[in-house]
């Protein structure tokens, strides 16, 4: 049989389409995977257990918005027990079993540091985490890792400046004897000196089951007007403040992100009395109950009312959950921008898209538009707890460091 030119062109096109269509279909994955390690057991299980359902909400809402370039995302999570080596194994398992893994959420500073040198070539993925460790905010050494708010050092700077503005002269640092606890201490010491504040006590405690009377006695002996707490989540910080109040100390206590959960403060107030009144600290995000919350929080609230009815998450989203969901939101936004440019969703392209997150409207996590600078978003404000309203309420305007 002889083919004329038109028949030849038609046949070629049809054959090409028949052979090429499956390849095109293959190029478009059925989903993109966001994986996470969470401390679902171990010392920070309380936080991990509250964060876990929030990841499901993130998946549902991200897919309502079209996933990434029309491809749905799938969120998977595994327990780490807050052990960095376990989280590393989880990450490797996700890399080995999920062909379309595009993002990873880590559960600790330790894990982020352990995995950072390994994020090269095909093993690299864009990575957010629960950590605000200052060392991670360095695009030169950790291009694929970022902080979803100000670093602990930034948070200490903000608190120390506030103390200086209020005319304070002496400050104590009480911190957990862990990497998390010690992160901003040296930097805080230097900032205090710059601001003319005298650091009269640097006290290290266990991160759980600390010897409260001893630490409180040392605080009393130091005569500090202010005390900055670092490295605690659910325990120690309330007991320290309670012990100080029982001792009759007038010291003003301040904390950083992980010591600012309203749910914990309420529980302490309910069980032990109103001694947390006036406790303040830095919070990068609006609390879920803030009057001026934006559309993102309204959307979460609607989802939670339906899907989390009868659980502690029905009417409230803890700051820990906000941090996790915002951290993943940053990754999603960066990956969407990569997809919009028609590029492959590699860690390298995503890291470049991170830098482009400038003057970004987050939908209400912050009261202002925010920018990613040096792989961190250095925006937040100071909140103070009231035992009458049982709420943390803002005592400063939004600032960016």
């Amino acid at each position, binding site marked *: 049989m002889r083919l004329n030119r038109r028949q030849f062109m038609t046949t070629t096109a049809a054959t090409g389409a028949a052979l090429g269509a499956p390849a095109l279909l293959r190029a478009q994955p059925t989903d993109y995977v966001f994986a996470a390690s*969470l401390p*679902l*057991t171990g010392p920070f299980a309380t936080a991990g257990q509250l964060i876990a359902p929030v990841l*499901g909400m993130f998946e549902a809402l991200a897919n309502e918005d079209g996933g990434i370039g029309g491809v749905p995302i799938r969120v998977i999570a595994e*327990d780490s*027990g807050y052990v960095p080596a376990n989280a590393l194994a989880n990450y490797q398992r996700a890399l080995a079993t999920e062909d379309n893994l595009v993002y990873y959420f880590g559960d600790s500073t330790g894990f982020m540091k352990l995995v950072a040198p390994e994020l090269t070539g095909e093993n690299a993925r864009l990575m957010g985490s629960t950590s605000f460790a200052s060392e991670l905010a360095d695009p030169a050494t950790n291009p694929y890792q970022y902080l979803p708010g100000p670093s602990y050092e930034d948070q200490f700077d903000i608190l120390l400046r506030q103390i200086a503005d209020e005319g304070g002269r002496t400050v104590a640092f009480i911190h957990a004897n862990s990497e998390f606890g010690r992160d901003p201490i040296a930097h805080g010491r230097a900032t205090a000196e710059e601001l003319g504040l005298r650091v009269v006590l640097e006290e290290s405690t266990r991160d759980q089951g600390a010897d409260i009377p001893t630490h409180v006695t040392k605080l009393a002996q130091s005569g500090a007007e202010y005390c900055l707490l670092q490295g605690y989540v659910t325990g120690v910080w309330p007991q320290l403040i309670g012990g100080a109040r029982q001792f009759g100390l007038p010291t003003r206590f301040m904390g950083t992100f992980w010591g600012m959960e309203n749910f914990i403060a309420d529980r302490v107030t309910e069980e032990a009395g109103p001694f947390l009144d006036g406790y303040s600290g830095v919070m990068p995000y609006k609390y879920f109950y803030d009057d001026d919350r934006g559309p993102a929080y309204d959307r979460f609230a609607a989802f939670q009312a339906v899907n989390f009815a009868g659980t502690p998450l029905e009417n409230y989203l803890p700051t820990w959950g906000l941090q996790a969901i915002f951290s993943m939101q940053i990754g999603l936004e960066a990956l969407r921008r990569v997809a919009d440019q028609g590029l492959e969703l590699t860690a390298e392209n995503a890291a470049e898209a991170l830098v482009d997150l400038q003057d970004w409207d987050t939908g209400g996590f912050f009261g202002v538009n925010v920018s990613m600078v040096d792989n961190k978003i250095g925006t937040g404000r100071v909140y103070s707890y009231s035992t009458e309203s049982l709420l943390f309420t803002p005592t400063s305007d939004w600032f960016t460091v």
Partner: protein
Amino acid sequence: MITGNLKTSYAADEQVFDNPWKRAFLIFCLLGLAAVAVFANDYVILIACQMGITLLAVTGVNVVTGYTGLLSLGHAAFVAVGAYTTVIFHSLAAPLIPAALTTVLAIPVAVAVSALVGVVVGLPSLRVKGLYLAVATLSANFIVIFLIELEVMSPWTGGMVGIDTPSPNLFGWELDTRREQFVIIAALAILGLLAAQNLFRTRVGRAFIAIRDRDYSAEILGIALYRYKLMSFAISAAYCGLAGALFAYFYARILPEQFELELSLMLVAAIIVGGMGRTMGPVFGVIIIVMLPEAIKVLFGAFSDGGAEAAQFLAPVQEIAFGALIVLFLLFEPFGLTQVADRALRTLNRWPFARG
């Protein structure tokens, strides 16, 4: 028909693998390791490397606890000493020694320093034993971690925030992938096991066993208790030091929190469930302690969608399942998995006369 392991020469009697089933088991294991090195994905390699490193440390614990009868809860300290000595040696030796030789020198130095620390930590064993010794050795964990975290030590140890580790380089062969490192870790783990097996066929090893069985009887028989107890601690710590050196090369960064009491307890737990005072005890112990939790995770993962909400409920169940399995092992096989393996091999060897 085989009715027992009948030996017709002294050479046959001295064989470590004294029947064909044991030799077949060894060959099967070696082939398995070779298959892992060639075919396994990065995740399996990671877990296999973790098992190899832990195996060496558990073998060390087995020397002092299983064979010499001295309970120690401070062996994580020796792993830490090995790991940090390796990193410090690299930083100090970098300008003086060619890169191709640094690793082959760093590992023996790490082993030697750990052995020395082992002797110091073992000193209380001269006066106390049992639980009292366990408490005395416990302090080694805290002292070593305290020293590592000291600010004055931070230029060498990285202090609280940890320190990046070098890649191993064997005579110019840079082992910068996990797969390459697995080959070295597996080889050293096998050599370590064989060395332990042979140690207990020597005068020194038999002295350890005599001390374990009744220390004053051993002394009456002419065994210098002080010397052999300290030697046991030194050998044990040396194994842990080797594990620490490999740990430092394997992970891109080491943190003090990786060497805390939890690791010491894990090493002791591994030897208990594996089988104390048996060469294969550490192997089975490591399978249970390191591999089983991962296997449970994979198994549970197969029955869920992998989502966060499923993980929320499955994570505590996995912990319970792991704990229950350990309890069941201790209840039904108090001599550890080694005993199960022994029975299986004996049954195969003497079939149909021995059936477990």
